[in-house]
């Protein structure tokens, strides 16, 4: 256990070590992702029974909930990376923020689109200014702002710090999104999966959902490692400003 922690610490501090281990992990992540995604799709579309109220439309949950979860999870990872970037000035932390932002924005947009597709047959409308939907839309604007800020700031060294501060300021939206269904009277349903309480979903429906969430998490790790690996190689080849950083 201690050796794993030391290895993780080493990978965080050394881009070279991170590159070596992340690239070695990519095939394993890809295989696990394909297995979990295949199971999630087959079980979600075929094996899981239809909901007694929503019918087969409930199957949208198997793509909507993982996207919504990833939209929050990626922002939390970016906030943790922002702290590391500001406090310890870690090279990798800046890269995590840069390459996570577009992925997070994509998952947030997908959560809104799939939610909207689900909302039409269930609520009778594509969109409503509900607390959960509105706070999720604000998260999409935050991601867009971060991406625009990244591309607009020419002076990279200062620009990266400004982006990290923006990420930390925007973190206030994450608990608002999570608790919006409890704080306000919303049309959106409460949390389906709970950490410290029994889930409100039947066990025959929960396993494909957990598999899809795990598959999406693996996908995020895979694409992030791939992009960071590419950038680290480009840095090494082109004597990028990041090389001068500790």
């Amino acid at each position: 256990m201690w050796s794993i922690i030391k290895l993780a610490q080493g990978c965080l501090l050394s881009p070279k070590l991170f590159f070596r281990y992340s690239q070695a992990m990519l095939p394993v992540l890809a295989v696990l992702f394909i297995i979990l995604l295949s199971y999630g799709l087959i079980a979600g579309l075929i094996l899981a029974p239809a909901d007694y109220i929503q019918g087969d439309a409930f199957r949208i949950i198997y793509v909507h909930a993982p996207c919504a979860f990833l939209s929050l999870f990626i922002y939390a990872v970016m906030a943790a990376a922002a702290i590391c970037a500001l406090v310890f000035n870690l090279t990798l932390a800046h890269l995590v923020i840069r390459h996570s932002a577009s992925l997070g924005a994509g998952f947030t947009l997908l959560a809104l689109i799939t939610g909207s597709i689900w909302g039409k047959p269930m609520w009778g409308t594509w969109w409503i200014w509900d607390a959960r939907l509105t706070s999720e839309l604000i998260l999409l604007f935050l991601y867009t702002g971060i991406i625009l800020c990244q591309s607009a700031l020419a002076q990279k060294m200062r620009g990266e710090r400004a982006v990290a501060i923006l990420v930390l300021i925007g973190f206030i939206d994450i608990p608002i999104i999570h608790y919006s269904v409890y704080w306000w009277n919303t049309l959106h349903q409460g949390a389906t999966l709970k950490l410290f309480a029994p889930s409100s979903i039947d066990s025959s429906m929960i396993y494909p959902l957990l598999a899809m969430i795990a598959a999406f998490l693996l996908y995020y790790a895979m694409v992030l490692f791939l992009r960071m690996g590419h950038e680290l190689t480009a840095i090494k080849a082109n004597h990028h400003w990041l090389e001068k950083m500790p």
Partner: protein
Amino acid sequence: MKLALLHFFAMGGYGGYVFSAYACVLIFLLAQWFIPWRRWQQYLRRQNKLL
């Protein structure tokens, strides 16, 4: 067999909603992987030309 397939794609009348949601997600997953991979191939080609 044909009837079973039709029944599956109909999804109790929600087929259009269900499959369009799945299609959006799968297209996004493919694009997020494919676009950086293509950029990387272009970068490698540029680097090879420089050598």
